């Protein structure tokens, strides 16, 4: 236990919800007390079950975080991540369980906590720093660094209410970024500012991780999580459901709720169609079925189907990304036209999507069996029958190179660039 920065045991936090009026008035309370004996006889007892009156924001959370670990915490909205940080920061007490924390804790649950619009940037740096727990001496010594990081030097003596929102968050983050406690609890504060600033923040957080501080980092940006953390905890419904290697856990989080994985084998008893799909598989370069694909390797999709009709059947696939954009559509009809008419029977059509074509993200594949030479003939459409994730190993060999920020585009081809001095 001596080596642990944070040792949590059965932490649980229960909140009362909705039904009871949140703000009591003294009058109501007094009336309630006085009328209690009468109420027993007059009011019909409607027992609201406990589940309707309380929710467990976190339930039975236990983990150990050692000194120097940078741990990411991910989960859907409402999973309990922020509550966990609040409990560890001592802002709210747990309903049960306990945690032992070794070291000074700095909690960044929000940028700009305590900023007062009437005060100048300079005054707010001192105020915010003190609120976060920095001592005056510390703030004075880091003052210049903070100002430099925030890039608002010219406006330092203007009241903060006149700042643009970008300047505001830059200043707020700059103060927070220079907090030098042994343990840092960070709650989604990196999603501020423009791209350039976000990268700066990410780099700074990376530095923080490297100085040997213990960091607990909550974020919705899988990019940042994978880049900064060596260990990730997945929280769902107030419980810890997974704890381990970042890519693994992130993928588990992303694939949750998706319709299917990389392989789909069809139940043949249910259909008597003369044309039907037998199986669809997504494979990686080494031939293994995998729903996690590397961006710099080809993605292979295999379609097993059966055709009992005379005439050709063409396999058409469409790839749709997470936001619903249809990235591409492709078919084996050209290939089939090269071959002489195929006899009825079972076939396998395989397509290879070249490396460095697709962008990162999750893809859903819809398969169709149709006859493209006679456009009215559509035999079969299977929507979202498989899905897979393309990820970037961020090792410098992909289109991104060393860039860790946002990279837009629905496709990401590796193009040839030529640089020449004029």
């Amino acid at each position, binding site marked *: 236990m001596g080596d642990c920065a944070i040792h949590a045991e059965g*932490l649980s936090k229960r*909140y009362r919800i909705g039904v009871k009026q*949140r*703000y*009591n*008035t*003294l*009058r109501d*309370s007094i009336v309630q007390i006085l009328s209690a004996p009468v109420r027993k006889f007059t009011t019909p007892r409607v027992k609201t079950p406990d589940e309707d009156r309380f929710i467990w924001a976190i339930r039975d959370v236990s983990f150990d975080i050692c000194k120097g670990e940078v741990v990411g915490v991910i989960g859907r909205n409402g999973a309990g991540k922020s509550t966990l940080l*609040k*409990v*560890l*920061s*001592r*802002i*709210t*007490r*747990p*309903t*049960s*369980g*306990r*945690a*032992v*924390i*070794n*070291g*000074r*804790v700095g*909690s960044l*649950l*929000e940028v700009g*906590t*305590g900023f*007062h619009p*009437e*005060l100048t940037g300079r*005054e707010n740096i*001192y*105020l915010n720093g*003190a*609120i*976060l*727990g920095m*001592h*005056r*001496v*510390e703030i004075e*010594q880091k003052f210049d660094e903070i100002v430099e990081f925030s890039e608002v030097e010219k406006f330092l003596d203007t*009241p903060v209410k006149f700042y643009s929102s970008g300047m505001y968050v830059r200043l707020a983050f700059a103060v927070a970024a220079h907090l030098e406690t*042994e343990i840092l609890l960070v709650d989604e504060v990196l999603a501020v500012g423009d791209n350039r600033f976000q990268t700066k923040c990410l780099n700074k957080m990376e530095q923080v991780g*490297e*100085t*040997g501080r213990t960091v607990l980092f909550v974020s919705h940006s899988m990019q940042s999580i994978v880049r900064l953390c060596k260990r990730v905890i997945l929280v769902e419904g107030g419980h810890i459901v997974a704890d381990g290697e970042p890519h693994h856990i992130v993928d588990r989080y992303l694939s949750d709720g998706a319709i299917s994985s990389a392989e789909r084998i069809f139940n043949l008893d249910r259909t008597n169609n003369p044309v039907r799909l037998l199986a669809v598989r997504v494979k990686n370069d080494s031939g293994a079925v995998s729903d996690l694909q590397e961006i710099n390797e080809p993605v292979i999709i295999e379609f097993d189907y059966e055709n009992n009709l005379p005439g050709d059947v063409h396999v058409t696939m469409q790839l749709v990304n997470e936001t619903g954009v249809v990235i591409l559509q492709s078919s084996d009809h050209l290939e089939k036209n090269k071959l002489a008419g195929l006899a009825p029977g079972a076939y396998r059509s395989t397509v290879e999507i070249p490396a460095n074509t697709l962008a990162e993200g999750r893809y859903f594949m819809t398969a169709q069996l149709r006859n493209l030479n006679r456009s009215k003939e559509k035999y079969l459409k299977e929507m979202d029958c498989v899905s897979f994730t393309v990820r970037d190993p961020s090792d410098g060999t992909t289109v991104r190179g060393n860039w860790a920020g946002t990279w837009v585009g629905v496709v990401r081809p590796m193009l040839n660039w030529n640089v020449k001095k004029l």
Partner: protein
Amino acid sequence: MVGRPGITEKKKQIFPIPQSLDGAGAEGIQVVVEPRHGWLSLGLGELWRYRELLYFLTWRDIKVRYKQTLLGILWAILQPVMTMVVFSVIFGNLAKLPSEGFPYPIFTFTALLPWQLFAFALTSSSNSLINNQNLITKVYFPRLIIPIASVLVGVVDFAISLLILIGFLIYYHVPFTYRFLTLPFFVLMAVASSLAVGLWLAALNVKYRDVRYMVPFITQFWMYATPVAFSLELIPQKWRYLVSLNPMTGVVEGFRWAILGKTSDILSLLLISGGVVVALLIGGLIYFRRMEDEFADII
């Protein structure tokens, strides 16, 4: 900073954090987070560790009060002076209330000073927690700091008015006696009373939001229950001890005793009032600490 790998080489300059300033949880010190069991300590040690934050919050409130105002710091002077003028006209001239041989204006101004501190503290501290809810829900520090800071802001106003009082004393040729030296004690008592009641109101207001609407009424009523505009001599002897249950009675009479040199049975008054202040203060601290854990959840 010694012994932490990876940090020393990044530092260009060393700034040693004196161990005394390092908050709870410095290397080697553990913090245990758990549901509260039983009675809490008053947490005064922790309060001391966070004293810098207390300074900053007080500084912030003072700065903000006078930013973008026309009269700025003059308000601290105008308020007691204007009240004194109104009282002098109405109670002094029109009602002709006796003022024990002293000129009415100075008689009432002496009492107005600690009274205004108290009245300010009542309003200010009852709203203090609610006004700072953004801090309470996002950062940890002993919540006691917030109402204390709001009372301290009143003390600053008080200090400014004290200068005016000295001006008046010179104008009315009131002699300075050794009793003046006891003034700090009475000031402390005024601050303690303000804090005592303020803590109760602050904590109550978080849970019962109608407290803030009751405060103006309470303040008004309290003022008439304290011998500010009138003299304690007006109260019949048998009721005088009841009136001294009001902590501010002791404070106000103490101020008059120390500054104007008026004679009175000051000791027994002080004992009763002082006792009430101490009881209220300790009760307030305990109640506040018990409610503190819920603040972030119900504010």
